[in-house]
């Protein structure tokens, strides 16, 4: 062997380091985020309060106000970011997102139905995500039904086109419902649609966390399969992957991850597009490092957006989703122009 051969960092190892750095950044933003708001707390104070010290007021503000919000922000990002990677890899399309298979419109419709017909403020920790998941899966299922033909092979373009058509149909029904409901319900829905982090009760957070952990692990375990599918369905089949079954399994996981984020956080689908896009530039294509990186990046973006909403007077009461868009659209366009 040639001894001058340069020892190159493998893409996987590099990805692990980048993820570690991102995680560090996430924690830093998290701590700073605990600091933002009317009541000032230093990072040291935040940390001591987290571990049981600090003042009573500090504890109330941190544990009742800030922590749940920030946890929710991170989790919404993680769910959307991971789900986006799965969708893009499965469909071989960098423009795919959890919204592509009609998840956004489908879960949106069910949440709208629930709010419009049953409960005005949508306050059911268990029912909301389950409805959103059901709506998302139902919509994804219908898209599969119309977008594939029996005994025919998977065609991503066809699925995406069907998704576009179905989404507009769902959207129309949702809009119709919103026209006929009363003011308070309408306001909740409008804020939900523009991406307000609303599910900030601890009971929601716990349900969300368990959900995210469950489907996160289920998805992440298939990272290697996702890599191979991303190279091509035929190549994956040749390598011994049951593409049909894995496609179904991974879509359900992606829909589940996105639906929970939709249910608790609102409409943050843009994260499912931009998270993977930025992450891909940092860690490459390997899903095993891309999924966490994309989730963490999306989490950081939501936290930053929420910090702006909390910290800047003129942004008070503006849903974080709007800030996410304002923040990331220019950056996304810049990335596209450069590539």
């Amino acid at each position, binding site marked *: 062997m040639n001894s001058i051969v340069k020892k190159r960092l493998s893409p996987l190892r590099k990805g692990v380091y980048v993820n570690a750095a991102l995680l560090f950044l996430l924690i830093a933003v998290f701590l700073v985020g605990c600091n933002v708001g009317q009541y000032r707390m230093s990072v040291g104070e935040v940390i001591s309060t987290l571990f049981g010290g600090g003042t009573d007021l500090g504890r109330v503000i941190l544990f009742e106000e800030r922590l749940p919000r920030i946890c929710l922000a991170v989790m919404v990002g993680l769910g959307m970011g991971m789900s986006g990677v799965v969708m893009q890899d499965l469909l071989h399309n960098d423009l795919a997102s959890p919204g592509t298979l009609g998840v956004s419109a489908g879960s949106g419709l069910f949440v709208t139905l629930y709010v419009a017909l049953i409960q005005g403020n949508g306050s059911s920790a268990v029912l909301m995500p389950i409805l959103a998941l059901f709506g998302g899966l139902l919509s994804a299922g219908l898209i599969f039904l119309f977008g594939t033909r029996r005994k025919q*092979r998977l065609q991503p373009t066809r699925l995406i086109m069907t998704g576009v058509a179905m989404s507009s149909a769902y959207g129309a029904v949702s809009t119709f419902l919103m026209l006929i409901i009363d003011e308070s319900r309408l306001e909740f829905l409008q804020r939900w649609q523009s991406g307000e982090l609303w599910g900030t009760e601890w009971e929601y957070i716990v349900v969300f966390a368990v959900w995210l952990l469950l489907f996160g692990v289920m998805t992440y375990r298939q990272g290697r399969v996702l890599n191979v599918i991303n190279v*091509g369905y035929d190549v994956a*089949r040749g390598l011994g992957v049951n593409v049909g079954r894995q496609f179904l399994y991974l879509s359900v996981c992606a829909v589940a991850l996105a639906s929970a984020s939709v249910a608790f956080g609102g409409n943050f689908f843009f994260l499912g597009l931009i998270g993977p896009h930025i992450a891909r530039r940092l860690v490459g294509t390997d899903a095993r490092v891309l999924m966490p990186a994309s989730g963490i990046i999306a989490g950081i973006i939501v936290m930053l957006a929420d910090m702006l909403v909390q910290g800047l007077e003129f942004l008070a009461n503006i849903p974080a989703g709007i800030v996410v868009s304002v923040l990331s659209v220019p950056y996304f366009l810049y990335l596209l122009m450069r590539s």
Partner: protein
Amino acid sequence: MNSIVTKQLKVGYDGNIVVPSFDAEIRQGKITSIIGANGCGKSTVLKAIGRIIRSESGVIIINDSDMSSMKNKDIAKQMAILPQTPTAPGTLTCRELVAYGRFPYQRGFGRLTKEDKDIVGWALEVTNMGDFADREIASLSGGQRQRVWIAMALAQQTGIILLDEPTTYLDLAHQLEVLELLKQLNENQNTTIVMVLHDLNLASRYSHYMLAMKDGRIEVYGEPKEVMTETMLEHCFGIDGDIVADRRSGKPMCLSFDLVKNDKSD
């Protein structure tokens, strides 16, 4: 000794049967090329054997076991298939792509073992892609790209490799390069190679056996000198061609040809 045996294999798309009943024995350790006009079912048969498409009925036996009773991963340890013009995400490096060939052997998270890494390194060397190992696929030329894909199939460490038109979109020199590589593999590793080839003369030059198809059926199957005949050219391709011996290889080749006169238009 046969690597692949098919019995009454029936394949089609969308209920249209393309290949009604395909019975063939593919010899172990030989290069076999499947030839035929567009739409004759040659790719379809290859894909069905490589289980990229499901066959309607019939039996496929590889290395003496019925494929339907084998696990996907176990099949992938015995037979690799390279689809026609596969595309990989551009940012993937050659080494990463070749390492995917180890997929059937991995479990869980899939860290590469020392053995995996050695095999990947070997596959890159054999295909002459060692110097490009850490380059991104997008930066490669067409010929290099094809060699990386072949390296991936090699990393799968199978006795059988199926290839669907491995020379498509390559210029003459690179076509030869790919076929020379396959020939070397066949000679050095005793790999059974089955490929669909468009170019009859290259098929004749590099194959031990040729299988000519017409309308989903086998027209003639044998050594190049038995298959490369004027009758076959007329039946399978609708051309009136001259078969001569290649000055270099001595194998039969089709020198010049015309469309068969009075051909029913179809």
